[in-house]
């Protein structure tokens, strides 16, 4: 279906609610990472999720995408409560990217995206062995869609390159393409511009707008305030796991508590400099700045494992 959506015109802002999270609480043993957060995202809306390090943004993401089961509260997607299983969530139409890129390094860009098609195709072992016309049709179909998505994010030329060899910025975009391949209604981007230079950041912003214009709802975690405020329709600010404020970029921007919350945190510009430095040598992604103590870091811990 993503093919049709390509031609679809931008839908009117603030359509029906896609995602409704109410009273979400996430505890790890003693510490409460997310405490009673409500979030509603509507069709065609870009929602920004900001907050200082360790505010529980990523943890909240994991609750939404079924990686964690919220200790309390429920997450409704298009009116239905989702089982806390990533697969089910994806199938329902919610896709995500990762704060620290998690591509399938030794697969080509195209293959990566085709993996995204997995949940929308259904060739079983038997059919894959017999390879009737139906199989070939499906295979060709997902190959075509994957290629289109690569073109859409501007990676069409690199379809046969191995993911691990792509420059950092392209890897982020490839991850987005992979997420889009699952035909989502809502896409959650975890720091999509981390470690990008201003030019790439602009491209990213443009890309996100085009995704929105496909009629998808978008939730973005970002540190880069300028990016967020110029991108989002609404912004939701988390501090120490609790909602500080939600509103239009303007409201949030002008709220003094938000400023306070960020005092003592590493200065944004500084962070950007670091990020740019990394973005220029396209080798290693900068590990997103997270205090070791924060719950957000135990995903990354498992990466190392």
């Amino acid at each position, binding site marked *: 279906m993503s093919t049709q959506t390509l031609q679809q015109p931008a839908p009117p802002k603030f359509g029906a609610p896609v995602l409704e999270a109410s009273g979400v609480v996430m505890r790890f043993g003693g510490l409460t990472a997310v405490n009673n957060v409500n979030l509603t995202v509507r069709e065609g809306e870009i929602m920004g999720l900001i907050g200082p390090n360790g505010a529980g943004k990523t943890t909240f993401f994991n609750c939404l995408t079924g990686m964690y089961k919220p200790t309390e509260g429920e997450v409704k997607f298009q009116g239905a409560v989702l089982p806390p299983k990533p697969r089910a969530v994806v199938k329902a139409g919610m896709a995500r990217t990762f704060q620290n890129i998690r591509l399938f390094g030794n697969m080509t860009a195209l293959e990566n995206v085709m993996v995204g098609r997995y949940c929308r195709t259904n060739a079983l072992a038997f059919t894959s062995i017999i390879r009737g016309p139906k199989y070939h049709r499906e295979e060709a179909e997902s190959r075509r869609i994957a290629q289109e998505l690569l073109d859409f994010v501007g990676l069409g030329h690199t379809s046969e390159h191995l993911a691990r060899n792509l420059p950092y910025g392209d890897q982020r975009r490839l991850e987005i393409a992979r997420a889009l391949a699952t035909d989502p209604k809502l896409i959650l981007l975890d720091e999509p511009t981390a470690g990008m230079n201003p030019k790439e950041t602009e491209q990213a912003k443009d890309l996100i707008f085009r995704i929105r214009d496909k009629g998808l709802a978008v939730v973005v975690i970002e540190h880069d305030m300028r990016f967020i405020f110029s991108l989002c329709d609404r912004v939701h600010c988390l501090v120490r796991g609790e909602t500080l404020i939600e509103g239009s970029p303007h409201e949030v921007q002008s709220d003094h508590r938000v400023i306070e919350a960020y005092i003592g945190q590493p200065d944004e510009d500084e962070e950007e400099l670091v990020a740019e430095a990394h973005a220029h040598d396209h080798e290693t992604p900068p590990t997103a700045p997270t205090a*070791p103590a924060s719950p957000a870091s135990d995903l990354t*811990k*498992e990466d*190392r*494992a």
Partner: protein
Amino acid sequence: MDLFFQQLLNGLTLGSLYALIAVGYTVVYGIVQIINFAHGEVFMIGAFGALATWTVLFQGQTSLWVLPVMIIGAVAASVVVAVLMERVAYRPLRHAPRLAPLITAIGISVFLQEAIRLFYPGAKSAMPFPRIDIVTGAALQLGPLTVRRSAIFTIGSLIVCAALLWYFINRTKLGRGMLAVSQDKDTARLMGINVDRIIAVAFALGAALAGVAGVAQGLQNNNIDFFMGFLAGLKAFTAAVLGGIGNIMGAVLGGLVLGVVEAMAVQFIPGTFGGSPWKDVWAFALLIIVLVFRPQGLLGARVVDRA
């Protein structure tokens, strides 16, 4: 009812052996998250180390005072082998895919077995283990209970080793270092802990206990052979998983439980599925059941899936 206690005692003896070996698996796994399949062979090497010490130094000697020296010999042998193993085979693979160290481990254990079989004089078949007057010899009668002297030695050495180990890990600098590394290698390294050294120490610790186990086994069954490590190792690993791998006291508990289960299976499971021929089946079945209902083991914390 006497039989129950008798078998309980037998089970605990058997279990103490498993426990001594199991600790090795658990310590290593807790720190480097690899299953050192070759650990069973380290145990076997320990037994042969003791035998060699005896043959070279006190051929024919049977009085108690040679025992400590034999134990030292055993521990030395197994520690050397284990540390070499770590250095030569495992360290280079620390960042390789999970499969690599596992296959290496299989290779090592086959290699060690064969090395002993081929190069240790007379090891092609089972070899008699030296008798030590006080420790082997006629059993003691406590009322209805028959207590083998070797059993006392085995259980005793488990208690002593466990105590020492607990002290080492919680009270010494090195031990705390191990805890740190098991929590988070990279951070520990940043804190200036020599991770390589800690890992080597972990292997050595496990090996030392395995060495003691080797002596205990020898005294108890009065014979050793090059293949003794395979099944013992497998059982010990089962015990480690049972107790919650990565958790030392868990390994001890797991070992004892496994031993008792085996003993009771021999005595009390009725019908054709009972008795000695099925006891191993029951032991392994227990492992699978535990993994189904409590993957983290009896005392283990949540196991992070490292797929």
